[in-house]
Structures are given as structure tokens and as C-alpha cells.
């Protein structure tokens, strides 16, 4: 009887300890920002741009496809069903609440976490296993400045930008769906824009920052936490994706509950 309880207790203690380590990692990342030298900022910008290329630009085709298909399916179904009861103007609310406010940020963050989270964790874990972190420290370069901050910044900027792109593509794809059901462009954009408030835009920005923080921090933490064996690299990549997905869903749920 005691064995399963103690095993459960150990598991909970390990999880709490890991959460504490993640919080310390996050604080250490924030503390590293003001200590960056002017020369260091130039290097960071260079790495940041490269990371945005991998994280945001290369994800654009996938995101356009996802946003188009999702929006086309939802709006084409909605136009048909709502048309039967003469409530097609509700597709504006559906578009804004379901897609722009909820699914857009969520799917965008999941795409980035899946594509780039594994890459970030695997890259940082490999850096550590290959002794590159040790070498950086030995040269007087803070690995947080060179490795973590650019990935953290790139994740936030990329997710924020991609959410905007997702929303724009979704709205356009929604129009295609509505148009096939005979709705005019003027009518469609009138009802969608009437449903869209400043709060929705503001919430998208906040979600971009929160989800970007999650998608940047958790893979970086997983990658930097390896001890030195190459077998830890795929484990770190897996932990990064699972952890990011969990916290993104948790964050999405908290947004609905709290705001």
C-alpha cells in the first residue's frame, strides 16, 4: 500500500521540482536581458533574425494551408446550417470567436511548438553534449545571451506575427466559403468586421506573447537541462513538444476562464 503512494509522492515531488527549475530558468532568462552588452546585442539580432527565418518564415506555407482549410470548412458548414434558420450574420461571431480569438492563436502556437520546439530543444541539447556551452562560458560568452535569448525572442515575435497571418488567411478563406454559398464580399466583410472588436486584436497580441514565451522557454529549458549524454537529445526534444503543448492548452484554457 505504501509503495504506490510513495511512488506517487516521488512523482509529484519530481514534477514540482522540475516546475521550480523551469521558473528559475525563466527568471534567469529575464535577468540576462539587461546584462547584454552593446556588441552582444548586435550578435543577438543576427541570431534572432536567423531564428525568425526558421520559426516564422518557414512555417508560413503550413500555416496558410491550415488556416485556409479550417476556416473554409467551418464557414462553409456554418453558412449552410445558419442559412436554414436565416441567421447567416452569425458567421461573423463564429469567425471571430472560434477562429480569430481561440483556434487561430492555439493552432499557430501548436504549429510553432511542433516545428520549432523540437528543433530548439535538439539544437541546444546537442550544443551542450558537444561541449559548446562549456566553450562559450570559457570564452566569456553567456550562453543565455547567445543561445536562449534569441530563441525566446524569436518564438514570441514569430507566434505573434503568425497569429496575425493565420487570422487574415482564415478570414479570406472564410469569404471563399461564404462566396460559394452566394454571399457577397461586401456582406461577408461587413458582418465579420462588425463582430471584430479592438479587444479581439489586443487579446491576439497577448496570446502571442504568452504562447511565444511558452514555445520559446520550454524547449530551451529542455535542451539546456541535458547533462551530457547524446541519448538525452531525443528525450529533450520529446519533452519540449509535450511540455509546450500541455502549457499552451493550459494557457488557452486560463485565457477563457480569466479574461
Amino acid at each position: 500500500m505504501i509503495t504506490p503512494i510513495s511512488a506517487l509522492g516521488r512523482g509529484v515531488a519530481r514534477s514540482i521540482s522540475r516546475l521550480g527549475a523551469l521558473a528559475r530558468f525563466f527568471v534567469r532568462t529575464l535577468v540576462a536581458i539587461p546584462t547584454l552588452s552593446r556588441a552582444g546585442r548586435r550578435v543577438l539580432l543576427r541570431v534572432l533574425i536567423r531564428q525568425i527565418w526558421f520559426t516564422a518564415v518557414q512555417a508560413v506555407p503550413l500555416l496558410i494551408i491550415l488556416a485556409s482549410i479550417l476556416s473554409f470548412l467551418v464557414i462553409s458548414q456554418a453558412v449552410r446550417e445558419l442559412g436554414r434558420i436565416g441567421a447567416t450574420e452569425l458567421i461573423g461571431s463564429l469567425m471571430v470567436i472560434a477562429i480569430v480569438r481561440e483556434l487561430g492563436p492555439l493552432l499557430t502556437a501548436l504549429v510553432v511548438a511542433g516545428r520549432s520546439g523540437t528543433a530548439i530543444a535538439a539544437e541546444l541539447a546537442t550544443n551542450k553534449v558537444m561541449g559548446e556551452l562549456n566553450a562559450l562560458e570559457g570564452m566569456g560568452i553567456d550562453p543565455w545571451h547567445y543561445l536562449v535569448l534569441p530563441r525566446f525572442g524569436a518564438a514570441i515575435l514569430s507566434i505573434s506575427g503568425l497569429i496575425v497571418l493565420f487570422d487574415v488567411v482564415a478570414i479570406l478563406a472564410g469569404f471563399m466559403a461564404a462566396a460559394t454559398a452566394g454571399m457577397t464580399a461586401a456582406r461577408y466583410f461587413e458582418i465579420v468586421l462588425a463582430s471584430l472588436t479592438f479587444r479581439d486584436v489586443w487579446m491576439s497580441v497577448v496570446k502571442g506573447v504568452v504562447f511565444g514565451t511558452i514555445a520559446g522557454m520550454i524547449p530551451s529549458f529542455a535542451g539546456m537541462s541535458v547533462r551530457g549524454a547524446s541519448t538525452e537529445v531525443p528525450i529533450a526534444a520529446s519533452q519540449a513538444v509535450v511540455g509546450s503543448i500541455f502549457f499552451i492548452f493550459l494557457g488557452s484554457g486560463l485565457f477563457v476562464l480569466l479574461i
Partner: protein
Amino acid sequence: MSDAPLFFEDIPLPGLADGALTLEVAAHTATVIQAPETSGVDLLSRYALGLQKPPGGRVILLGEDLSSLPRRVALAFRRQVGYLPAGDGLMQNLSLRDNVALPLRFASSMSEGEIDGRVGVIVAQFRLTDHADHRPAAVTDELRRRTALARALAFDPPLILMEDPFDGLTTKAATDLLALARGGETEEGSRRVVFITGQQVPIAVEKRIERRYRLARGQLQLDT
């Protein structure tokens, strides 16, 4: 307190019979400690740079005990010292040229043009020009080691710490590497202080090292 550029005082080492190492690395010398990995000698450079705190004793590097300095100050201080870690520690996603440029880009007030000029000179001096745009995975061990040394010496530091620098190198390549690390000769000896830990040191290279210590039967013996 010793005024030697590098001074180890009572550093516990599992490989030593009396348990602790006290050693001065004198100016204008190259010093090597040859010992198996399990002896703990391979950690001496890490202790010196404050990358790892020794379990006891202290290390004075250019007059400072780095383990007692705040992290930010210790990071800046390390730029006064060259460090060639075991393996090479090169960034795999950067070309050899960008690896050499990295410390200059990160920690100097030089413009990008000045950095390019300086890196060009270093790359030529270390005979890397033909391979400078390759990544580490695409070149030989010798070129990687040469690049790592070039990077460590980018600021022309007065002292360099090297871990297992000659592993896998031919005698000629190892001799060249040591000559580059010494940075030329003065009337008093090596222009740069060189401290080496490792297991393999070719005999031809040993002859060019002023102080050679070997760990045998738990005692650190000075070869003469």
C-alpha cells in the same frame, strides 16, 4: 600569495596520494600535466576559469580567484584568457571563420569591418583560409583544433589553458599547434603562458615544453 599567472593551491585531486595539488605555472613557460582522466587533472582548467568550483583550495588566475567573483564579472574576466576545451567546442552551425569571429563580435567594441579584417589575419596565420567557409563537421580534426585555438587566441590573451589539445593529431600538427599557442618566443621564453592538461603528448612536443609533470603512482613528478 603567489604572483604567478596561474596558481593552484591545495586543490583536491582523487589521483594524488597526498590528496591535494599545489602548483605554480610560471610566466613565459609552457607547462603540461600528463595524467589519466580519472585523476581529476582534466578539471584543473575548469577550476581556473571558475566554470566549476573546486571541492577545496583555490585557484588564482592572473591575480583573481574567479570562483569568488560574480558570474557577470567572471564572464568578462575570462576574455583575458584563452581556453581550448577538450574536443574543440566549436559551434557546429557556424563556419570556421564565424567561429573565430564569435568572441570578437560578442565582446569587443570593434566594427564589423574591423572584425572581418582581424579575423582574416588570424585565419591566414592559422592556415585556415582555404577552409574558412566550411563548417566544423566538414573538416579534419586538425583543422577543427586549429580553429578552436584561433578562436581562443582571438583577443591575443597572455595565457592559454588547453585540455587534451594533441589527442588524435600527428606529431607535426601537434608541434604546430603548440607553437601557435606559445605565440612566439621572447628572451625569457614563451611569449604566452601555456597550461596543458592531457593524456597524450607526443615526445617531439614534450621537448618544447618547459615544465612537464607526470602523474605516476599517485605522485606528480617533474620530468627533467
